[in-house]
């Protein structure tokens, strides 16, 4: 996606926010914080609630429905929020704000905050692939070589010997699956992944990604910490009241 005009910057109140529709019908939440402007998905990733109706104090954005919160500078989830916001880098030219779309890799929670060089190295490993609805990406017992990051579409998982237990995951843009490829001693898939709709994914070789991370242990530590909390979310129950 090329650069798209969003709005004149005067439309965004100082330390405030507004919703804009850009060419092509994409709706964005545009916020100002000091000298900087940020653009995010217009709707809360939780339910279909417009974030511009939420609360914003110049640094933290809160959806008024369930109090999910995000750091306005990064879109990172805070407090009760279970998902980050998809961010669109903003460029200021004269008095006009523009956005440029990002690769799913930049929005991937797994890789937020890691070193630029390491991200570039992983990006170089990523192959963008497009699959028709009904395509199987992998099946139980297949070698777990690659992991995937969803860019668009919808992927379903079937787990278990009888394939009877769908884990109906509805992944969002930037979410990771096939993470067995990042683990040791998990050489085979334990689920079947099928595209329910036409889907675009980034395919990345697990071993090569691990090598890139091993060369930058600080980033590697961040990624592994995120991966372990991601895995724990599928196992654990949330904390008691």
């Amino acid at each position, binding site marked *: 996606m090329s650069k798209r005009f969003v709005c004149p910057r005067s439309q965004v109140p100082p330390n405030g926010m507004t919703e804009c529709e850009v060419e092509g019908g994409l709706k964005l939440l545009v916020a100002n914080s000091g000298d900087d402007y940020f653009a995010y998905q217009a709707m809360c990733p939780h339910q279909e609630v417009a974030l511009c109706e939420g609360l914003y104090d110049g640094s933290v954005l809160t959806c008024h429905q369930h109090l999910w919160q995000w750091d306005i500078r990064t879109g990172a989830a805070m*407090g009760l929020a279970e998902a980050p916001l998809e961010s669109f880098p903003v460029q200021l030219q004269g008095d006009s704000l523009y956005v440029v779309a990002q690769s799913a890799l930049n929005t991937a929670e797994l890789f937020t905050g890691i070193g630029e060089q390491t991200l570039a190295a992983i990006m170089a490993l990523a192959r963008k692939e497009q699959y028709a609805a009904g395509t199987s990406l992998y099946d139980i017992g297949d070698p777990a070589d690659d992991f995937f990051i969803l860019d668009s579409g919808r992927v379903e998982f079937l787990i278990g010997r009888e394939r009877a237990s769908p884990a109906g995951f509805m992944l969002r843009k930037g979410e990771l699956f096939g993470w067995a490829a990042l683990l040791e001693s998990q050489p085979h898939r334990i689920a079947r992944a099928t595209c329910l709709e036409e889907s675009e994914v980034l395919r990345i070789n697990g071993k090569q990604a691990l090598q890139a991370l091993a060369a930058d242990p600080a980033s590697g530590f961040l990624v592994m910490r995120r991966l372990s909390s991601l895995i724990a979310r599928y196992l654990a129950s949330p904390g008691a009241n």
Partner: protein
Amino acid sequence: MQIQINARNRAYQFETQSGRRLLYSGLAAGIHLPYECGTGTCGTCKAKLISGEVDDAWPQAAGRKYLKHSADVLMCQCVAKSGCTLEVGNFVYAMDPGACIPVFGRGTIVNARLLTPDVMSFCLDLDVPCDFDAGQFMAVEVPGIAGFRGYSMVNFERAARRLEFVVKKKPGGGASEWLFAGDIEGRAVEWFGPLGAATFYPNLGKNILCIAGGSGIAGIMSILSRARQERYFEQYNGNVFFGVRTYADAFFLDELAGLAAQFPSRLTITLALSDEAVSDAARSNYPAIVFDSGLVHEVAARHMAGKFQNVRAYVAGPPPCVDGAIRMLLLQAKLSADNIRYDKFS
């Protein structure tokens, strides 16, 4: 009939019976399906029907406005006509050990009485004892009116045989009009519960701040009842702000004054009148209660200034009151979101 729910982390299966809401059957099976009001208003229990056939038990439910696609349903309103598979966009877990798993029951209305001209209270004598947590509510279905309505428990006890509720008169509200029409003593109703996450547990270890508008005081009374039973206010502070339009709209003042008198050093009860100045008569009738005028969240902000450390807030009432209180608690008081508890009914 077998129901399967595909959640983001795994699939769940449970049995439902004809006529029973899918949400209720799933919750009764100990599965923490997404919901808030549980009664057709908030849209939180939205799911996508993948296969099977359902009937909508209450097609007029206000929460249907959140449904965007033809396959979308409100789990709190649909009943299965066949085995079904549905998909929800949330992570779903089993209920925590020790949680009060909701059950289906019947009850008989007793002790119906007017508290003010447009607020009433009634009790339900239950056919089966019920455990609930302080701050929870019941979904109640009255005869001849489509759809369950949520009413917060006023009392608190384990294995309760009787529950007390408060209802605001709502012109055009089917269930409210039925309750206010009189002649309800001894009538049988259906209930399902307990429901709701705005719960108080005595192991909280924080000062509590309650902001309630009108009939929203019901669940706060239950929280105060549990806190009193556990002598919570010997260790922690309690600040209760109860907002009504005029002094004549206030109720439960004897009960609230009694609580304040029992824990004079730590529990403060403030009545906020939004539409009139405070009279001397009010002050002399209830010396244990603090009176002020203004919107309840504004009064709370004034009186609590500088006292928001280590606070858990409970908020209940009509939507403008809840929204105003949440805005104040987040932006002015800088409470973290997980220390603001409320159930969304709109």
